[in-house]
């Protein structure tokens, strides 16, 4: 339930220019929450999306090393303009941890990461509400067994 008191599902964007890593993260998170994830290759495109549709994103998972606008700059802009949004910075550079903390990142995900790390993020930040039958990006869960 959001601040307006209405039921609304958490929405996520993943930003990484490495398709293999991005697809792995997307498939893991999609499996974890049964919801479609929006993806971008560049920080600039992600920022444009956030500006145009600010209500369509609750959590940003972005790599630090992405084209046009790097993850640190994207983190800075997101926290300045949308401080309520959660931001997870992923990187292979451990030096960014201090910077990410200072800039208000909610989580720091050091590469290489694996399924457990992504599921921990899912459990930490994704408060999955009860069934939302009319939501376009999600569907009901049915048991097969």
């Amino acid at each position: 339930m959001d601040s307006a008191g209405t039921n609304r599902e958490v929405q996520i964007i993943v930003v990484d220019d490495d398709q293999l890593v991005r697809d792995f993260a997307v498939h893991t998170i999609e499996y974890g929450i049964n919801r479609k994830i929006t993806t971008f290759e560049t920080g600039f495109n992600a920022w444009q999306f956030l500006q145009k549709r600010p209500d369509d994103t609750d959590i940003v998972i972005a790599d630090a090393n992405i084209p046009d606008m790097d993850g640190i700059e994207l983190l800075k802009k997101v926290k300045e303009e949308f401080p309520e949004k959660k931001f997870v910075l992923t990187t292979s550079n451990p030096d960014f941890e201090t910077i990410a903390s200072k800039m208000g990142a909610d989580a720091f995900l050091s590469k290489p990461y694996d399924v457990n790390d992504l599921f921990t993020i899912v459990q930490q930040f994704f408060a999955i509400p009860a069934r939302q039958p009319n939501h376009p990006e999600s569907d009901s869960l049915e048991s097969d067994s």
Partner: protein
Amino acid sequence: MLRLGSKPNQSREMDLDDIFLSRLKLLVIMGKSYIEGCPCGRHRRRAMLENARHIESESIDLGGLVTGSAQPTPTWRAMEFDHIFFQRVKLLAVMIKAIGKGFPMGEHRKQAMQENIDIICETITFNNQSDMPFLKVA
């Protein structure tokens, strides 16, 4: 701030080996979740199909490595997995694809999948001790 992932002194870019092993773990989780009766939805099924397809295609190269017909491959693939292991991984991928497509699964199929997963987990655990905690909870 939540801190996850590798330790600072082990940070590096993710290569094909990392992706394959992580996707294989995800495949095992998908299989075990299904056996346990966890519910599936449209997006979950799609993720299962995509993940299984990726593993299946990568396992073909891995299998070829054993017979000497593979393309040059990254480092961890030189680990001492045997040919049957890769065939078991491919089999699990096919099983997960079947679930993703909604094909019926009887008790014997579920049992076969459980046994296949157990053997895959044993092999991974033997070859990579760091995966042990994950495999215990998967």
